[in-house]
């Protein structure tokens, strides 16, 4: 038995150059796809070429941060399934907790190096401010996520950290909503909400990197530029925009 789709309404069936109909081209789905493809076509989303200046070890730390985040999530999922007290009584649990602990340490080491690298590269140049901002938000959200992780250890460390941290948070009113001595609240935030926040911001950050491309070196010279463009560049230069070197 064959299923047939109902014939399109005659008024909607006028052709468009891409083989669809005018009605198709006004669909939200079509519009979203076209907008996505014009901004981030596959070759830009998953490129196999990068500008020649992308040749430094500093570039590795961004992807290392993402890799460490993946290990943090996987080991955290195992701990989440087994419950917060599992690692106190099981060698496998303790080892899993050790994997989680060290992957978090690596995550922060890589992320901080990545952040410093981007600072010294002034990587916000060229309409990349939002890339910098999402990176900083991801960093701050990661600190919050790690902090709640320390609070749900259910050991002496978490007792002391919650006792000490409550004063700082209460002093500015945050303690009324974010109660560090409430294990249930901290566990839900640590295992559900905050990793989701970090993950979403990280995806946004990576998409912005793909959208804008990797920032060129400070004072880089575009081979396409020539002497007649020089004067324009000099006249309009903001303080964070490089003055291109004059060519012989």
């Amino acid at each position, binding site marked *: 038995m064959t299923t047939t789709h109902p014939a399109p309404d005659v008024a909607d069936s006028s052709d468009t150059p891409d083989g669809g109909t005018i009605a198709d081209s006004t669909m939200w789905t079509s519009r979203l796809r076209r907008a996505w493809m014009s901004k981030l076509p596959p070759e830009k989303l998953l490129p196999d070429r990068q500008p020649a200046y992308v040749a430094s070890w500093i570039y590795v730390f961004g992807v290392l941060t993402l*890799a460490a985040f993946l290990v943090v999530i996987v080991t955290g999922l195992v701990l989440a399934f087994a419950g917060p007290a599992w690692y106190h009584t099981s060698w496998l649990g303790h080892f899993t907790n050790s994997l989680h602990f060290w992957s978090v340490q690596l995550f922060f080491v890589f992320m901080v190096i990545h952040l410093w690298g981007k600072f010294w590269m002034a990587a916000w140049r060229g309409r990349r401010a939002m890339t910098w901002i999402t990176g900083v938000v991801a960093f701050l959200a990661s600190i919050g996520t790690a902090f709640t992780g320390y609070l749900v250890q259910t050991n002496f460390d978490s*007792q002391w950290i919650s006792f000490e941290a409550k004063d*700082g948070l209460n002093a500015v009113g945050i303690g009324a909503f974010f109660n560090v001595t*409430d294990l249930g609240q901290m566990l839900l935030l640590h295992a559900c909400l905050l990793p989701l926040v970090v993950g979403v911001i990280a995806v946004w950050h990576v998409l912005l990197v793909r959208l804008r491309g990797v920032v060129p070196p400070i004072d880089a*010279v575009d081979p396409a530029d020539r002497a007649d463009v020089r004067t324009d560049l000099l006249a309009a230069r903001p303080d964070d925009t490089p003055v291109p070197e004059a060519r012989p």
Partner: protein
Amino acid sequence: MTTVTDKPRSTDIAARDWKGPWRRYDIVKEGVIAVVVVSILTVLLAGLFSSPDEPQLTFQGWATSAPDNFYATAVQELAGTSESAGYGPPYNTAADGVSIGPIAPQQWFGVTHPVDAANDFVLTPLRSQQQSADVTDALATWDGAAADQQTSWATDYDTALTDAGGDLKQIAPGDYGPVPVLAQGLTDMAAAGALDGILISQGGFYQTDFTKQILFLGDGSYLDDAATAAHLQGNTWGMMNETGSYPGQAWLWLYSFWYQIPTFNSDNPDDYLTSHADAVIFYIMALLSLILLLLPFIPGLRSIPRWIPIHRLIWRDYYRSQHRT
């Protein structure tokens, strides 16, 4: 040679598509290698160094190893002189909390996690179990007295205990009502291990909020002494330390840094910045975080990478090739 373009070109080279040379870059291969390397590194570190897990403190441990301190803390809870009893929002209304000028967010949201130190920490746990005759009589005497009388008994005994340096044998004679018996009853109960369970359940079955236990535990010196021994105090970079020799939250170094400055950590607790350190340091860190967030828009700060040419090292191959050109 003149460049001809169809559209006006951006004057910012960083905002344009790159027109210079390109190189092969296998981004997927790089990602897979990164995951493998990080996974191996994590397994190695976990296998070699394990991870910290210092056992939790218990009320039984406290009442067993430091019974005098536990006893004195129970008296303070009844007298309302403990840190928890006089904390203020969000636990009670005994104090106003920290404010800086008219900015008093600790008061704005009121009491959201109510804690009645005398009842929650001492009287309710004692009532929840069958007690000896003297404790039962002491509870009845306490319940039958007026609030002023209760306060008078407890504060007088707290003062006498403090004057005696915590030595029960040196306490001056006086009318302390049922307070000594209640404090001893709670100490015995804690030493037997019963208080831990009662405080955890708090009269219910399910419970995930440990606010009362943490506050009570912190009122005595037991938790504080353990933290000092583990180098976890705030004035010794405790915020970023971990038990044992493990790395802690090193990323909080700047937050912890402010607490090391004598201005925020003086011997006189009445110094304004010391007594308001928690709030002031939070606002400083919030401001610094905002500056970091908005760095691309802050003149001067955003130009530091240009003034200190570390980028010359990062892109040394590019600059070398430019120099040759």
